[in-house]
C-alpha cells in the first residue's frame, strides 16, 4: 500500500487496508472560523493514498462517491465493517469475434488508447487489455473478426527500436495466421515514429497495417478511442493496398477520421484529438459513417512480403540552433554513426559549422539535411550555404519530415553496417535516397498546407 509512516501504523493498528468498508469516527479540532471542534461518523471505503496527497492523510471514499482526504490526527476510531467489498455486478460485453470472414489482428502496445486511470499513482496508465478495448468498440463484430495480441504495455514515450522489431514480428505473425489486416493500438507521442519505422521494416505487407491511438483515455465518456479504433478496423479489413497507415480524428468532432500514410504524418498538437496531420502529401482518405473515401491512395506494392528489422540507435537528430553546436558536433563525430540535421528553411546550417560537418562526413558518418519547417522540401541549391553543404557531403532529405529522415537513417545504417568506412557514406546515400514507402515525395501539390488544407477537408465532406 502507498501509506507510510504514522498513517500506515494507524491503519495497521486497526487491521484495515485499502478497499475495506469502514466506519470512521472523526474529531475535527476547532478551525479558525468555528467556535468548537466537530465530531463526525462516516461509513466509507478506505482508498489507497495517491502519490501526490499528503503523507499524513488517509483517503476515504464517501457513500456519495466523493473522495475525502483526512489527516490521521483527526481520526479517533475506525471499525472494519466489511473486508474489501465485492464490486457491484458489472455487465461485461463479451468480446465478440464476429463472423465476417475478415480476420483482423489487434496488437496492443500500450498508450492512452489502452489506458485506465491508475488510482494508486493517480496517473493515466496503460493497462487495458485488448479484450477490454474490444468492449469499448460496441459494433466491431459487424466490421471484422478481431483477434488480439499484446506486444507491450508501455507509454509511447518509452518505445525503443527493440519495440519496433517486436511489433514487426507480431505483424508478420498476424499475416502468417491469415489476417487480412493489422491494427496496432499505440500511444500518440511517438505513434508517427513507429508508423515510419514499420514502413521500413515491413516490406510489401499483404494488407493494411493501421496504427491508431487516442488523445483522451478510454476511461472517459468523451474518449476518441472508440471512433479511432472502429475506423482503424474498417481500414484494416478494407482490402486497401498493403502499407502502414495511421488513422486518427480529422477534426475535434467525433464524425470523421483521416487515413495518413505512415511515412508522411506527424503529431502537430499536444492535446487535440485532431493532432495528426499529413505532411507534404494529401491524406490517403477519409473514414466516416459512410465508410472509406479515398483521396490519394499509395500505389499497390510489388514484390514479396518480407521483414527487415534492426535499427542503429546511434543516429542523432539535431536542429539548427543559434546557440553553439560545436561540442555537440564533436560528440557526434566521436560517438555516433550518422547525423540528421533539421536545418532552417530549405535546409541550412550556419556556415561556421561547415568545416566540422565536412570533417564528420570524412569520418564515414553520413550527414542528412531535413527542414525544421516540417512542411515543404529541402533545396540545397538555392543559397550558397546549401551549395557549400552539398560540397561538404551533406545528403538532402527532400520532403521527408525530420523524424522520418531520422528513422530512415537509423534503419539504413543497420542495413549497411558491413560496409567499409570509405564507402559508407555513398552506400548510405544510395539506399537513403531510394523511395521505399512513399516517404520521398516527387511533387508537392496544392491542398496539403495552409487554408487549402482546411478547404480540402471541407471538400471531402469533413465537418
Amino acid at each position, binding site marked *: 500500500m502507498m501509506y507510510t509512516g504514522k498513517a500506515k501504523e494507524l491503519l495497521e493498528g486497526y487491521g484495515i487496508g485499502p478497499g475495506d468498508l469502514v466506519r470512521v469516527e472523526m474529531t*475535527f479540532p476547532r*478551525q*479558525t*472560523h*468555528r467556535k468548537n471542534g*466537530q465530531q*463526525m461518523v462516516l461509513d466509507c471505503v478506505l482508498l489507497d493514498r*495517491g502519490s*501526490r*496527497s*499528503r503523507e499524513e*492523510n488517509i*483517503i476515504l*471514499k*464517501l*457513500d*456519495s*462517491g*466523493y*473522495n*475525502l*482526504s*483526512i*489527516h490521521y490526527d483527526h481520526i479517533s476510531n475506525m471499525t472494519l465493517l466489511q473486508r474489501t467489498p465485492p*464490486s*457491484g455486478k*458489472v*455487465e461485461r460485453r463479451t468480446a465478440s469475434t464476429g463472423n465476417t470472414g475478415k480476420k483482423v489482428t489487434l496488437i496492443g502496445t500500450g498508450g492512452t488508447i489502452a489506458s*485506465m*486511470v491508475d*488510482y494508486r499513482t*493517480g*496517473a*493515466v496508465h496503460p493497462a487495458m487489455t485488448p479484450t477490454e478495448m474490444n468492449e*469499448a468498440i*460496441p*459494433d466491431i463484430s459487424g466490421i471484422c473478426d478481431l483477434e488480439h495480441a499484446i506486444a507491450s504495455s508501455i507509454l509511447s514515450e518509452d518505445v525503443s527500436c527493440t519495440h519496433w522489431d517486436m511489433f514487426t514480428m507480431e505483424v508478420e505473425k498476424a499475416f502468417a495466421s491469415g489476417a487480412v489486416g493489422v491494427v496496432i493500438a499505440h500511444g500518440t507521442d511517438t505513434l508517427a515514429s513507429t508508423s515510419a519505422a514499420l514502413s521500413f521494416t515491413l516490406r510489401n505487407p499483404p494488407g493494411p497495417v493501421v496504427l491508431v491511438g487516442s*488523445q*483522451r483515455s*478510454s*476511461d*472517459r*465518456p*468523451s*474518449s476518441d478511442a*472508440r*471512433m479511432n479504433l472502429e475506423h482503424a478496423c474498417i481500414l484494416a479489413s478494407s482490402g486497401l493496398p498493403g502499407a502502414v497507415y495511421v488513422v486518427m480524428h480529422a*477534426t*475535434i*468532432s*467525433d*464524425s470523421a477520421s483521416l487515413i495518413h500514410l505512415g511515412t508522411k504524418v506527424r503529431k502537430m498538437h499536444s*492535446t*487535440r*484529438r485532431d493532432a495528426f496531420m499529413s505532411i507534404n502529401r494529401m491524406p490517403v482518405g477519409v473514414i466516416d459513417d459512410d465508410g472509406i473515401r479515398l483521396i490519394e491512395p499509395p500505389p499497390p506494392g510489388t514484390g514479396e512480403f518480407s521483414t527487415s528489422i534492426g535499427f542503429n540507435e546511434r543516429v542523432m537528430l539535431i536542429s539548427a540552433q543559434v546557440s553553439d553546436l560545436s561540442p555537440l558536433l564533436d560528440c557526434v563525430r566521436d560517438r555516433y554513426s550518422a547525423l540528421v540535421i533539421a536545418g532552417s528553411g530549405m535546409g541550412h546550417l550556419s556556415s561556421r559549422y561547415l568545416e566540422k560537418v565536412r570533417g564528420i562526413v570524412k569520418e564515414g558518418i553520413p550527414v542528412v539535411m531535413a527542414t525544421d519547417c516540417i512542411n515543404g522540401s529541402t533545396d540545397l541549391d538555392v543559397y550558397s550555404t546549401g551549395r557549400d553543404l552539398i560540397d561538404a557531403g551533406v545528403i538532402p532529405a527532400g520532403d521527408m519530415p525530420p523524424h522520418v529522415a531520422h528513422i530512415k537513417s537509423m534503419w539504413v545504417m543497420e542495413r549497411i553496417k558491413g560496409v567499409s568506412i570509405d564507402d559508407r557514406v555513398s552506400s548510405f546515400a544510395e539506399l537513403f535516397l531510394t523511395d521505399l514507402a512513399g516517404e520521398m515525395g516527387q511533387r508537392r501539390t496544392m491542398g496539403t498546407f495552409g487554408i487549402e488544407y482546411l478547404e480540402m477537408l471541407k471538400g471531402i465532406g469533413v*465537418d
Partner: protein
Amino acid sequence: MGLRVGLEVHRQLIGSKLFCNCSGELEDREVHRIRRRLGLSRSETGDIDRAASLEIGKTKQVFYSITENSCLVEIDEEPPKMPDRATLDAALMISMLLGSHIPDEILFMRKIVVDGSNPAGFQRTGIVGTGGQYTTESGHELFIDTVCLEEDAARKMDTEDGTLLYRVDRLGIPEIEISTKPDISSPETARDVASSIGKTLRSTGKVRRGIGTIRQDVNVSVEGGNRVELKLVQDLRTIPKLVKMEAIRQMLLVEMSRSLKDNGSPPNIPLEIIDISDIFRSTNSRVLRTQIAKGGKVLSLPLRNLAGYFGTRERHGRVRGRPLSEIRKGIDDVKRLGPEIAAYAKVRTGIKGLFHSDELPDYGVSEEEVREVYSALGLDRDNDALVLVCAPRDVATRALEAVHERVLLAYEGVPGEVRRTLDDCRTEYMRPLPGSARMYPETDIPPIRIEPSDLELIKADLPEPREERVRRIAHETGLSQELISQLNDLELIERFEALVSGGGDPKLLSRILINIIPNLPPRDQGSRELSDQGILSIVKQVSSGKMAKEAMDDIVPMLTKRIGNGEDEGVALKGVLDQISMDGDVMTELSIFIQTLVQEKKDLILDRELRAVGPLMGEVMKVFRGKVDGRMISEMLNREIGRMVGDR
C-alpha cells in the same frame, strides 16, 4: 407522514472559469460547432454507473456550440488548469460561514454526467467543507452535509430537429454546491432554509446574481418512500408546493404498493410482449395509423389483475378500494401509475407515449378494438390491465420492458429517482438516482493543500454576521434596527453605508433606497444607473433646506426618466435641480398637495383608476395654474394614482 427534505443549493461564483482562464460571462455568439459521441466508462472500482448506462445505451450523439468565452479545456481538447486561487478562497469562505470543516487537502473528482451537458462526459467537483451547523434567520437549526466547489455545465439549447445541442459558454463557471442533511421536516422550512442560504451566499459578495446563477435541487422522502431528487428548482417560492406534491406522490405510491400486495397479485409478473398489430390494421386512431405507416408494430404487455392501477382521467384520486380524499385535499390532479410507466418508456426509448387499458377506449382506439385485444390476449376486462406501444419493433420492445420494470417497482413503493420539475410544479421522471460508481478522481488536478495560514487570511475577509451588522449600523446612524434589516435584506446595506460615509443624511438615504428606487416603474431603466453622487446631491438639497423631503419622491423619478432617455446623469441632475431651485417651494407645495389630494380621493381613484387623472387635474390646476407646467402636474398625478392602483 415522516417528511424528510434536504436541499442542494447551487450558486455560481464570480470570476473566471474554474479550470481555465476563460471569462465567466455568458456569450451567445457561436464561433464553431462540433459533434461528439459520448460512451460509457468504468469507475475506479470497475463499475459502470447504472444511471449513466441507462441514459447512454451504446453511444450518444451531442452537438456543441462553441463560444468566444471558451477554449480547448471546455471541449475536452486540453487538460484542465489549476483552479483559480481567488475562486477557491471564495468557496472556502462560504464553507466557513456555514460552519463546515475545511479539509486540509482538496481532491477534485470527476462525476460522470452523460446527458451531454459536459463534453468530457463528467463534471469536476471537489469537497471544500464537510459537516457544519448554521442557524437560519427564522431560527431553524440547519445541518450541512457537504459544501462542494464544482464547474457549471453547458447550456442545453432548443433545436428544431430534436438533436441534442449544448452551448459551452456556461460550462466551467465556478459554482458552489451546498447540501444540507435531509432533516428538514416541513415544506415551508425548506423554502426558508433555501432563502437563508441564499442570503448568506450573497453576503460574501463572491456570488453571481441574476437568472440562471442559482438553482436548488430538493431531495424529498416520506415514511415508507424513498429519496427522490427534484432537479432545477429556480424559484424559491415554488419549493413548498413542489415538496407537498412530491410527498403526496410518494404517499400514493406507498399506498399503491400496499394495495398491490393486498390485491394478492404476485409481483412476479411475466414479461410477455405480444404483437397485436393485426387488430389495428384499419384503426381510426391517428396516432397508431401514423406509426404503423412508418413501419411501427403494435406490441402489448398484459398485466393480469392490475386493472385500475394506471388511472383514467375520471378515476383520478382513487386508488382501488381506498378513498384518498384526506391525502389529496387541495390537490386536484393526483397522478397514478400511468404517468410513471409512460415516463420510464419515454426516457428509455424516446417514444412519445403509450396507451394503457384504464384510459381506453380513447385516442381513436375503439371499444371494439379494445374488446378484440382483450379477447386475443385472453384477458379479463374487469381485472386485467394491458399496455400498448406502437413503434418500430425493437423500440416498442424496449419500451414495454421499461414499463414492466416500473410496474414491478410499484410493488416496492417509491423508486429512488431524479425528477425534473415542470412549470406547474409537477415533476417528471429523468433517471434513477446515480450511485457512487459515477465518481472517480480527477487525476489532471493534483490534491490542493489548504494550510491554516490560508484559513486565517480568509477569516480576516469574512463578511460581518447579519445581526451584528444590523445592530452596529442602527447604532451608528440612529435609525431603527428594523429599517436597517430591511436595507440588509434588499442587499442595499453596502451602498447605504457608503452613502452615509459620503455625508448623506441616513434617514433621507433610507427613504430613497427603500421607498423610492424600488417603486420606480420598471421602464425607468436609468434608475439602475443612478450613481451614489446623484443620490447624495439630492439628499444634500434636502438637508440644506433647499427642498422639502417630500419632493424627493418626484425628483428621483424625474431624474431617472431623463437618464433612461439617454441623458447624462450630471446634465439631467442639473436640469432637474435648476427647475427645483427656480421654484423649489412651489414644487414642494405641489408635491404635498397632490399626495394629500390623492389620499382624499381614494374612492374615486380606485373606482376610475387612471381615468381619475382628468377630474383631479382640474383641482390641482385651480391652485397651481401659471406656477407649474401642466405637463409636470399631469406626470406627478399619473404617478401617484398609478402607485395607489398598483398597491391595491
